[in-house]
């Protein structure tokens, strides 16, 4: 029976259900000894995990010679992953340098 007074407003469960991901998530938790303090945190991480499975499929399509899938970072959002596991502070002049290089490449593409 569906309780019409309670409406699902987040999409995390939908993603999880679409892919049948919860079993994979449980294996991921076991493999990487992950612990989540509350049920809410578990569901939140499950939602992120499901989205990352979709990202892995997208990455696999764009990058077919590599293998993409579940990694130790599959329960992190892209923003969390960048904040916690990367950390190079790019100089503004570097971005300009790359932009100039891009322009040169495009300009020389005569034939």
């Amino acid at each position, binding site marked *: 029976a569906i309780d019409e007074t309670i409406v699902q407003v987040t999409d995390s469960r939908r993603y999880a259900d679409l892919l049948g991901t919860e079993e994979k998530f449980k294996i991921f938790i076991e493999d990487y000894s992950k612990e989540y303090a509350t049920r809410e945190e578990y569901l939140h991480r499950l939602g992120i995990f499901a989205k990352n499975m979709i990202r892995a499929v997208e990455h696999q399509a764009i990058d077919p*010679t*590599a293998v993409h899938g579940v990694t130790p970072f599959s329960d992190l959002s892209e923003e969390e992953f960048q904040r916690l*596991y*990367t*950390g190079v502070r*790019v100089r503004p002049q570097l971005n300009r340098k*790359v932009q100039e290089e891009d322009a040169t490449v495009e300009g020389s593409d005569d034939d």
Partner: protein
Amino acid sequence: LPESFDWREKGAVTDVKMQGACGSCWAFSTTGAVEGANFVSTGKLLNLSEQQLVDCDHTCDRKDKRACDNGCRGGLMSNAYRYLIEAGGLEDEASYPYTGKRGECKFDPQKVAVQVVNFTDIPVNEKQIAANLVQHGPLAVALNAVFMQTYIGGVSCPLICGKRWINHGVLLVGYGAKGFSILRLGNQPYWIIKNSWGKRWGEHGYYRLCRGHGMCGINTMVSAVVTQVS
């Protein structure tokens, strides 16, 4: 230049390390380059301290005073070299072990294991990068890590990977001549990259990336370092 080259086979690369949930990749990239340069000049491989950089290095870029080394919140390898030249050197891992958190600076100049005397930026040309790699040892590089979150193995050769959004410091340790790429219709040369996310990530902690296309900005922030020979 040799067709393929790998500093790991020559004993110039320490075991894969784990930065943990701390944006200290810049420190690992720096120590990797210093470890390699020290090996090239002395023949000895030392395991050097990232924690010293995380705790003690607050150096800012000369042109952009906002780009400062800031422990787990990020930094730049070129800033770290300047810090090491000014501080007098780098302790080894055993005397200043990694904790994964920024703490009080406990650098002891008496315990310096390696001194840095100079460093240089390498041009964006990937043949020049290969030549410098062979000559100077493993090189500190930075790249756009967007594909690395889901990477498990193989040669990564994405059709699109932004060169402008460089956010991760790693270590270039070698290159190979032939890694098969469907998209590029044949065997493609690749870089061998040491990461700092532990051995359970990627190919036992390593990443292989297409060579010759400036892939993910790999050619834009490359540096080599020279250490003191006593």
